[in-house]
């Protein structure tokens, strides 16, 4: 137990990196050994993650556990601070779970031009970056992990991607980098400007716990709004929030299957996680002022992403666009600044991770069989590869938010929360958002079922009718996919598994805003004036 408390988070964060280092010593030709090493590493990480989950004190899910607090860069007051609470736990679990599945899938799906060693090692480095982001409790540490994620993904797209990989990878890299730069500026401003709420002294710290407690104390309102704006751009690009989403369809379409899955399942959540872990608790006053705008971009994204889906002719690009719509629901939940909405958002992140990750797996397997993802050339998948077709149908249903499957519990509560956002946020505006978001569910059904109809139903086209390569789901796909399919059902039937964990942590972090003496009302007046409510 002591070991776990002191080393648990460090272990789970750096195990993948250690694995990557070990793989460096294995010769390139030993592909099988390399695959085993990568899978073993990710399984060990999963084991460590499960251990953390098991020993986690769920009665205290609101407070950080397994906290590590060591000096790191003393000169700027940045520490090696890690911790896990109910908000980060589901995302950590998602990451450690998805990665082994990706490695299993990679067993016979190394994309061209091959070089399993580099490919697998990069994914392990990526895993360290993602886990680190979710457990970091120091802004600089958070930033470092946040950026560590970029490079491996950049190379995955640039080297193993599709035809247009160079453009896509560069765009991904630069766009996110651009956002990060503004985010970093925000972090620096917090460092320089935050004051202790009691003594009024400058804090000069990057410790997220301290900054959360300070909740923007001592920073004048206009600066708060600006700092939040910087973070808004930084995290918003990553989410991606309309209109900063244009890197996503390209990156997703060009990335290899594994890259797309990781991108959808985990990477996009770094942005939304940033909002609920950093931007909102540290600057609650600014968050209230920004909330109507976040909500606006969110609902535009819901409709716009869905329309984008309807216009697509490529299956993978369609799924990529659907992420814009789905993350819109997540952002709408966040924008309400209520515990209910943010719980929904976290649920939505996990659900989207599983469901859209699954859709990308399917797209990858379709591509492998048909050598194309052009929707109008496909068709009749249910006849040629019935199980693959049914899995696509099931996942589409989950994605359009069918109750009983995971997607619903991210979507419906977010819409519900919009009826009554936090005090001080214009109700009328958000009720409008609620209706728009509900209309988004119609469009979601439209594009997903239309995709299903055109790819899975009907008779196979002449081109592929007698193609022997079109086989049903193979063993590695089954092993990689069944846990995801199982979890989609499990979380749909027992949503409490996630809500019970996130709720205390979300309440805890929102208490900051509620404790502000007059901050909320002040902002309320301002925003009401702005929106004429």
């Amino acid at each position: 137990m002591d070991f776990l408390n002191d080393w648990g988070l460090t272990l789970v964060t750096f195990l993948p990196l250690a694995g990557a280092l070990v793989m460096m010593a294995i010769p390139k030709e030993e592909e099988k050994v390399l695959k085993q090493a990568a899978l073993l590493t990710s399984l060990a990480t999963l084991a460590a993650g499960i251990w953390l989950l098991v020993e986690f004190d769920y009665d205290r899910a609101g407070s950080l556990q397994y906290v590590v607090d060591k000096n790191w860069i003393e000169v700027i007051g940045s520490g090696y601070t890690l911790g896990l609470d109910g908000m980060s736990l589901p995302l950590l679990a998602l990451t450690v779970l998805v990665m082994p599945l990706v490695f299993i899938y990679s067993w016979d799906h190394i994309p061209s031009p091959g070089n399993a060693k580099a490919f697998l090692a990069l994914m392990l480095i990526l895993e360290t970056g993602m886990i680190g982001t979710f457990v970091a409790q120091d802004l600089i540490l958070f930033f470092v992990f946040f950026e560590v994620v970029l490079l491996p993904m950049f190379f995955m797209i640039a080297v193993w991607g599709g035809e247009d990989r160079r453009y896509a990878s560069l765009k991904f890299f630069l766009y996110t980098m651009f956002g990060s730069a503004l985010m970093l500026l925000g972090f620096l401003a917090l460092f320089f400007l935050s004051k202790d709420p009691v003594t009024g002294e400058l804090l000069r710290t990057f410790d997220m716990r301290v900054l959360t407690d300070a909740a923007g104390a001592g920073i004048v309102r206009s600066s708060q709004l600006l700092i939040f704006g910087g973070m808004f751009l930084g995290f918003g690009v990553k989410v991606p929030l309309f209109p900063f989403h244009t890197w996503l369809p390209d990156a997703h379409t060009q990335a290899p299957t594994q890259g797309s899955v990781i991108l959808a399942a985990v990477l996009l959540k770094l942005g939304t996680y940033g909002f609920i872990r950093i931007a909102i608790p540290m600057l609650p006053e600014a968050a209230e002022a920004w909330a109507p705008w976040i909500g606006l971009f969110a609902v535009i994204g819901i409709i716009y992403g869905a329309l984008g889906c309807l216009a697509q002719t490529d299956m993978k690009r369609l799924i990529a666009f659907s992420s814009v719509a789905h993350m819109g629901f997540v952002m709408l939940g966040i924008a309400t600044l209520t515990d209910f909405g943010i719980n929904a958002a976290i649920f939505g992140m996990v659900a989207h991770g599983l469901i859209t990750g699954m859709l990308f797996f399917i797209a990858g397997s379709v591509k492998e069989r048909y050598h194309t993802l052009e929707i109008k050339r496909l068709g009749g998948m249910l006849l040629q590869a019935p199980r693959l077709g049914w899995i696509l149908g099931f996942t589409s249903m989950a994605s359009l938010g069918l109750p009983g499957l995971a997607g619903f519990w991210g979507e419906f509560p977010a819409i519900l929360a919009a009826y009554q956002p936090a005090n001080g946020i214009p109700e009328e505006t958000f009720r409008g958002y609620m209706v728009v978001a509900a209309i988004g569910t119609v469009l979601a059904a439209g594009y997903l079922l239309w995709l299903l109809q055109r790819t899975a139903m009907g008779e196979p086209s002449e081109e592929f009718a007698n193609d022997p390569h079109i086989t049903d789901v193979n063993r590695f796909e089954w092993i990689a996919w069944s846990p995801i399919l199982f979890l989609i059902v499990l979380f749909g039937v027992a949503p409490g598994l996630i809500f019970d964990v996130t709720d205390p942590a979300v309440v805890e972090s929102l208490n900051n805003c509620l404790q502000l003496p007059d901050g909320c009302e002040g902002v309320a007046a301002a925003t009401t004036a702005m929106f004429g409510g």
Partner: protein
Amino acid sequence: MLSLFALESVSEVSTVVQDANWFLEHAWIIPLLPAISFVLILFFGKRLPKKGAEIGITAVAVSFLLAVVTGWAWLDHRDNVVFDGGHSESVVVDDGHGSDDGYGTDDGHSGDATADEEHAIVVDDGTTNGDDRVSLAVAAAETGGKTEAHPYVAVQQTTQWFQSGGVEFGAGILVDGLSVMMLFVVTLISLLVHIYSTDYVGGDRRYTHFFAFLSLFTASMLFFVLSDNILQMIVGWELVGVCSFALIGHWWEEKPNSDAALKAFITNRVGDVGLLVGMITLFFAAGGGTTFDTVSINEQVVQGNVSHTALVVAAAALTAAVMSKSGQFILHTWLPDAMAGPTPVSALIHAATMVVAGIFMVARLYPVFFEGMSIGGSSINLLSTVGAVTLVGAGLLAFVQDDIKKVLAYSTVSQLGYMAMALGVGAWTAAVFHLFTHAFFKANLFLGSGSVAHAVHSFDMKKDMGGMKKYMPRTFWTFLIGSVALAGLPPLAGFWSKDEILVGTGGWGLFGGTGGNGAYTFHLSMGMIGAALTAAYMTRCMYLTFFGEWRGGHGHDDHGHDSHDAHDAHGHHGEPHESGPRILVPLYVLSGFSILVGLVNLPPGLFSGSAKSPASWQERFLHYMEPAGSSYFPAVAHGTPSWSLAIVSTAIAVLGIGMAFWYYFVRVDRLSKQTGQSLTGLPNGLTSRNRLAKAGHTLLVNKYYLDHLYTGIIAGFTKGRLARAAYWVNQNVLDRTVNVAGETAVRAGRVVYERIDQGVVDGLVNSAGRVSDSTGQELRKINSGQVQNYAALMFAGAAVLAGAFIILFAL
């Protein structure tokens, strides 16, 4: 004074208990069984000798038996429950009929409280309907051997599902007359459809899959009707929708079928926007943002604690949901298309059960609609008008259909219109009663049409049917019974429920007519017109299908997909023949119900003349179903039945039959015999002579152009122009901005790099660098262009950063 006080004491105390008969408490087992069956069929179905059908049938049969026992327990509970106003432990159910020993007198004051409650009931009913007092008292005397009536006490069992943000999400069951009735209807018809399907879809390539989805549907529907909270209702509502999707698209190889499935799902999603908005509004306005519980939401509304505006919004939004799910104008268009699914599915899902989910939802949340639509004391509102328009509009459409299933589909839409109208005018019991009777005779008709289609391999009445009476006499008789019941001729089922709806409109002022909740005269007349239409189109349907000579038997392969049902097992040609027992027995059972079920709610006063009359048979349905006087039901008034209305409405139905009979059975038949052909209409009918009639006919054939509007214009625009425009903006505005910004930065960076860095700074470094390693050169060879680009970008990035810093700190 006494009555006022008593009324209050009813509504303040929740008339819901936890403890009751074992079967009432454990009604959740009924949906659980088919749910388990679904999973079992899914994983093991194909390996079993009957391909999974045996699991489905067993599960539904047990569910049906449980539903019957639960229904029995409810009748007993309704008559014998002792209620002391809130202490749930005090309810003891009498298991031994007629004996007083079982009654609970567990605490001293319960006697007084009970007396108060009973008083209240009698007074409440007395204010609205004088006859009720008598019938209730008689009922009590008959069943329990006690002299007083008992209050309406529902049974609720809830457990916490999960919680989030301080809101508890419950999962539970609410058992009262309404849900018990639905349990019976759903399980019975599902069981019959299961049996029927073993023959009808026998040999289908997705036979196992078909039964799996039947099980899932049954489970979802039962889950829906037992819901004790609105969130659970949403879940059930969506789940039955997805089963409907899967079953409509059962033969998805052909595009029209998958189109129909998509249309059904997406149209329902449009209505679901209303469902979500309405339920969310209720959750906050009536549930206080803390509870989804149906009973407490209803209670808040009944007690007048909810703002009227919120109720108007909620009721209107939920009406949109009813319009899609229960096929009301203008969102009904998916339902006729849904006939692309196998016929048993049409009978179960698209006639008897799923499509009444909207009606059920209104009935369940009735206070919301009663208050929100201001039903009492009014003469028009949204719900009643939607229903009235639907019942006539769809009735007209049924005339121009050649496909027998489409006739029945529009008929279903029309009958659902009756139900919605009834709820809209405040005739709750009439609506629920019509739901009940309609389920049997419409399932009967659908399965009957399937039986015919099974024989002639087609659904086209004009091309492939005619004269079927000779070949399939048994199917003919059952179909005739269903038709008469639907047409509303006494004493078959449809007559009683339809008559009750017409009474409920309160619009009948002739010969000492009736009160009701308001004067819905317009709706009464629409109901009358609907009665004539129904009778007439069913007569047409009977003639085209069963009379004249058989027109089929030649080249029936031309009209491919709509005869899909037929392709499966029977490849043989020749004369059509009667169906087997697995098809006929369900028809017999349903015919029996079609004849008899109307008798469960005989109007009061029917037998009052004689002392030995079976007065206890009057208004049994109302007694056991309507939660009058319970805490979660509004104070609705009941219209008084009138002989004159019954006679007039019957006469109108007979008139409708007569006109169609004269046209088809007399004139068309005569001409057919003259020409020696089996005709389906007169060659120079009204529509070919009169321009107005022709225009009307064209309008009907084109289904009021609604499909054109939805599929062609709205969906076409959204999928086509709008989506393309959004994508164009994406590529040419948003993305272009990004690209231009990127390119500019690269260009700027290159200038800086080439001119300043390479020219000046690097000049010194390079002279040293040239001497250094050869590996570096190798590296440069590989992607020298890229390295330069990256470097340029780094500079650009730095420039942006610096700019941002300057802006930030200048402010």
